[in-house]
């Protein structure tokens, strides 16, 4: 990273670092370690009798495929390879019950024996996950002390720290992820910090987390699981920030790359958090932005099904190597990107700003031989079929995400980014009846931009099962303890009172039902019985909103499950520079027009081609038109209007009925 920084900034690097007031880093070290299988060997201590929890996984097995393909292929199911080998897991005789009462006290001698059995030179890290530790962490803490005294070099992850929530499988999986990633991540991050300060950086380094906020590097080192999938999360944060500036509250943030299409939904300005997040088949309880993905991307392969002769796209992908046929890197199966090229959406001479020349000849031949001929249609129709099927799959995902929450996609603005997103977004919006699409000026670096605009965020949780109506004093006491810790943490990181924001909430559920909901609590230091009554009322309303009318079983009673505190330390943010809108005429950005295919009804249409770099804020154009940027291509379809706004975002709107 230092190397690429210095490549980009050259001799100015030290100067820039010296003057920097904020350094945010979105790291993929955790995902990379998981993807390449290069996590550290870790040990795990658990309650005796439950050593296989990590392997049983509550019966979960992942499909490499999704949707209907997965249903019809039970034989293709696999479990994710275990993070910790069974040999490195030891049980210790102890037991705590659901109220946190100690049923069987833990003897230090037993804990020591368990530790001795797993400790060896190769174990750099040990996780501890005991039953009910999130209610009573005493035994876990004793083990931590023992570890620190006897094995000072070994990193320790307690489940009651990293995932203090009910559900021993998910909690242990989170603990295991953290224990396995901690040594790798700390090496990487500490090296980074050293190099940065060697090169003159004076401010602290912040690491972006999967919940979209950042935490200081010293904390991130011990909590690498929190940084998992922070890249896509930062993209959503940036989108939400941009939406705030633009006054847009309902957003579909869509990121389409080479292999996946990722979507997150922002409703009423609020980012949604995942309820049951997983990474590569491993469950994790760390707060994480809810981002759904399907295997639809530029590399998705088009094929004809045997017997039925139907056209299919995916789930197999050519990825980036060998990639689409037109890359000329040895791919021989037609992909979505090949279709985009044949339809004239992409320019073979100006792909990635001309950095890569595309092989139209190869793509044409494959599309003809493998798709068009068997279907007895021409290549353009075949390519358009591939394009439409991909669009339909993406729209189905978005439709599910919005309608499942009782919302209509028409009420949203679509923000499209990622390499292949802007090519498809206008058709996608048309399909869903969405009236406005925004391709952010930062489309290619949405994640980095998100990192730069994030605040320091610490999430705290504490489980205390309290039947409602609960004792007001106890609630206040529970909150007070967490809030004091939160403020202390942020102060120690250099934040002053005025920069600290504390948001408290309660996780509440109906007793006999499974779902839990997070309900914000009034922003007061001491809550009254009346405040709480309004919280409970709010819970009932939220429950019905989330799960449907009549979905609550009130007679079973309600209870508080978790106390949550989100502590935010405000960081300085880059401001969005707003330009003055100039003239509408965009002709100065025109390049040579070309013929582009917009479906069997319209056929090939002579289309204006614009260079994004040459457009000025305020410039407009009518579809069909194509705008080429150095990193992506934007397609404006018939009946749509394109415009560069004051922030240099590209905005597509629809005139009249856009279906």
């Amino acid at each position, binding site marked *: 990273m230092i190397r690429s920084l210095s490549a980009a900034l050259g001799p100015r690097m030290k100067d820039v670092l010296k003057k920097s007031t904020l350094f945010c880093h979105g790291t993929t070290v955790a995902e990379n370690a998981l993807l390449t299988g290069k996590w550290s060997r870790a040990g795990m201590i658990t309650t*005796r*009798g*439950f*050593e*296989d929890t990590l*392997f*049983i*996984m*509550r*019966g*979960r*097995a992942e499909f490499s495929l999704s*949707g*209907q393909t997965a*249903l*019809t*292929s*039970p*034989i293709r*199911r696999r*479990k994710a390879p275990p993070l910790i*080998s*069974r*040999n490195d897991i030891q*049980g210790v*005789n102890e037991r705590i*019950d*659901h109220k946190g009462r100690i*049923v*069987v006290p833990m003897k230090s001698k037993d804990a020591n024996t368990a530790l001795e059995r797993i400790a060896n030179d190769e174990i750099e890290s040990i996780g501890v996950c005991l039953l*009910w530790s999130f209610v009573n962490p005493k035994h876990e803490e004793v083990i931590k002390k023992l570890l620190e005294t006897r094995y000072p070099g070994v990193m320790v992850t307690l489940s009651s720290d990293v995932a203090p929530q*009910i*559900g*021993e499988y998910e909690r242990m999986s989170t603990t295991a992820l953290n224990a396995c990633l901690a040594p790798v991540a700390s090496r990487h991050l500490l090296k980074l910090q050293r190099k940065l300060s060697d090169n003159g950086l004076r401010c602290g380094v912040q690491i972006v987390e999967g919940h979209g906020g950042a935490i200081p590097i010293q904390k991130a080192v011990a909590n690498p699981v929190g940084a998992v999938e922070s890249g896509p999360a930062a993209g959503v944060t940036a989108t939400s920030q941009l939406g705030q500036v633009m006054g847009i509250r309902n957003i579909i943030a869509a990121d389409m790359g080479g292999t996946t299409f990722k979507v997150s939904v922002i409703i009423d300005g609020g980012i949604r958090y995942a309820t049951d997040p997983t990474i590569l088949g491993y469950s994790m309880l760390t707060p994480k932005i809810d981002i759904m993905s399907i295997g639809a991307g530029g590399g998705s392969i088009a094929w004809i099904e*045997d*017997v039925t002769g*139907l*056209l*299919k796209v995916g789930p197999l992908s050519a990825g980036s190597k060998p990639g689409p046929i037109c890359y000329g890197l040895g791919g021989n199966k037609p992909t979505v990107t090949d279709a985009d090229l044949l339809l004239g959406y992409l320019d073979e001479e100006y792909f990635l700003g001309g950095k890569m020349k595309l092989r139209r000849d190869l793509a044409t031949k494959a599309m003809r031989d493998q798709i068009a001929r068997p279907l007895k249609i021409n290549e353009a129709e075949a390519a*358009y*079929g591939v394009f*439409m*099927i991909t669009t*339909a799959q993406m729209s*189905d995902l978005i439709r*599910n995400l919005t309608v*499942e929450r009782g919302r209509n996609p028409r009420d949203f603005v679509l923000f499209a980014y990622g390499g292949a997103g802007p090519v498809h977004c206008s058709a996608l919006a048309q399909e869903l009846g969405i009236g406005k699409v925004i391709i952010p000026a930062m489309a290619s670096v949405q994640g980095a931009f998100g990192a730069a605009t994030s605040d320091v965020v610490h999430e705290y949780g504490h489980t205390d*099962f309290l039947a409602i109506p609960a004792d007001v004093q106890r609630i206040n006491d529970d909150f007070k303890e967490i809030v004091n810790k939160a403020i202390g943490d942020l102060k120690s990181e250099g934040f002053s009172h005025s920069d600290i924001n504390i948001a408290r909430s309660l996780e509440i559920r*109906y007793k*006999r*039902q*499974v*779902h839990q909901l997070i309900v914000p609590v009034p922003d007061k230091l001491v809550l009254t019985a009346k405040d709480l009554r309004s919280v409970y009322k709010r819970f009932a309303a939220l429950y019905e909103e989330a*799960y*449907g009318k*009549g*979905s609550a*079983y009130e*007679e*079973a009673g309600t209870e508080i499950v978790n106390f949550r505190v989100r502590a935010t330390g405000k960081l300085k943010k880059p401001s969005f520079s707003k330009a003055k809108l100039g003239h509408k005429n965009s002709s100065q950005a025109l390049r040579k027009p070309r013929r582009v295919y917009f479906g069997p009804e319209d056929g090939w249409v002579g289309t204006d081609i614009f260079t994004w770099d040459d457009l000025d804020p305020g410039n407009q154009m009518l579809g069909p038109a194509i705008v080429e940027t150095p990193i992506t291509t934007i397609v404006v379809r018939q009946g749509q209007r394109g415009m560069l706004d004051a922030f240099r975002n590209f905005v597509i709107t629809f005139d009249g009925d856009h279906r």
Partner: protein
Amino acid sequence: MTSLDPVTFEILRHRLWQITDEMAVTLKKVSGSPSVTEVQDINVSLFRKNGDIMTSGWGIPWHITSAGAACRHIVKKFGNDIAEGDDFIVNDPYVAAIHCPDIYMISPIHYRGKLMGWCANFVHVTDIGAIDPGGFSPSATEVFQEGLRFEGIRIVEKGRLRQDLLDAITHMTREPGLVGLDITSQIAANNVAKMRFRELVERYGVSTINNVMDGLIRNSEAQMRAKLRELPDGSWKAVSYMEVEGENCRIPLTMTKKGDSCVFDLTGASPQINRALNCTYWGMVGGVCGAFFSIMCEGISWNEGILKCLSIIAPKGTIVNCNFPAPVSISTVGATAAIACSCITAMSKMLLASEGHKGDAFAVGCGCAATMRHSGKNQEGHYYVSGLWDHSVGSGGAKSFEDGLDTSGGQCGILTSMRSPNIETTELRFPLLYLFRRHCPDSGGPGKFRGGASGDCAVIPYSYGGDGIKLIVSGWGVDAAGSAGLSGGYPGSCAKFVMFEGNLREMRKSRLPAEFAEISGPSSIIPPQYVGVFDENKILYVRWAGGGGYGNPIEREPKAVLADVKKYLVSVQSARDLYGVVIDVPKMTINEEKTQLLRHRLQAKRITLQETRSATTMSRVAKQRVVSEHVDVITVGSKKQYRCSNCHFLLSDARKDWKLKVPVRDVPLSRSRMLLGAADSVQFILREFSCPSCGRIMDVEMVARDEPFLIDKVSH
């Protein structure tokens, strides 16, 4: 293939699937009950207006065909009296559903007043007001004791819920609140389906949608028939057993495949019994078709088109097609599942007779039932009914190329949607405390590829109110192993239910038991169907069945055996006795020399020929057809002969069956080291067929002592 353009077709196929997906999400959201949300005992599907299955979605596959039958029944019963916005309930197993607690919500989908199709879903509701709490009734001797039974009532009339009717239903159950929610969630799920479907018709037009629905079914049939034509003709046999009050009920199957269709013949099944493990006609169809979908239909939309390739013979009055009013409340996990086990084995043997489709073969996983319900007063003094769902993770059968999944796959290894709740969520809601829950060593069927390990657990009552907990056990697979192996692989372990005497006060004085062997105190075996009191002086132990193995255990990679030992999935002793792998303890390394010697000895002891008769060994002749992993057919002169594919020894004339010509060794299950925890019953044996020349085990049958050989016929 279809008159529609292929792009629109594919787009609509995906959209229709998405509708079922959204139905499942709605069920889970609105119901919020553990059996729906955490265990996923549900199914969702869409049907044509005549009840033909069009798109089946997630859930338990037994119910797909039954839901279709339920739609047809509503058409028959209500005729012209079906209006837009109506929702119907069917749960009568003699009409369509499989057992009473699985309530089917059946709703017509109209567009501009015209019937376009149906949507249906089922939920296993928390209670149905039967003689025993929770829906499974071991005490019942006729269906009248198995709770509310509706052969079709209109619960929603033209969009208006008939609240009095819903109240009447919930009022007659032990858990009115939760059952009410379950039913509400079912109505909500179908409302979503109706709305989405209408949106599609609005957008694409009636004829396009009808064309797609026709096309989907036609395509599946064409794909299925094409696949069947690629497979050899022949007939394959399998048998399953269920223990009921000391008797063994037998479920034999002969599957005959000719050209592009299959016949499943269950003739010979035991007469019906007066216990609830019987299944009705629809339970039987669900078992056959659910297994067929899961094993044979990869990549094909599961719908009516596939069913056109199947026919079924099941004599009335038997345990697989019982007469009214025989009790059937355990059928879903009883006869239906046992039928599926037989079907999985027969179909897999057919797939193994084709080199191109060998990879689809699947040994049976978790061939047992270990269904537990418990009720009583919880920690807070409230009455509750619930399940113990640990076994629902199941165990996967081995495949021809890799091990079965450990603790995954649900019952039969194909109920892939099933999950188990966390221990903590169970302990929070119910007055129970787990002593352990773990992988059960030596539970996976030994084989070249090991069957998936099952698990076991021990539970004690904890801080309950009142007079203890009522425990209802609905099981089988305790005496006979239900997870058959393939190609010489051994079956997975039997299930086991034991009640120990003991209490927490005593146990906590030393260490809490953390595995079966550590539980002390007098114990008694719980019969597979049982209702009893579970109190603070008892410890319940439950083990469910492991998955069947594939191929010969002594051909398993020694390294893989060592890895299993290190994972506590195979014991050191079993590694030696079953896999012929000698492990030096405590170094935990393979003793190569001793292993080689032992493996040689294990195989050599089965050689019955005094000398190698080279004249009958035919290596140079190319095989004409594969019959199984270990047997192929060659032509010698004008005669076709069966040959051992390992040593090329000629086994027999191909007009006779090779099994009649090779050495057979019967090992009583109780004495077999191959099978963990087999009960003391001497009725069941492992029948090992081996090559007389090289000693390789060619097939293993888990059968009753008097069962005739399971002779498969492959046309050549």
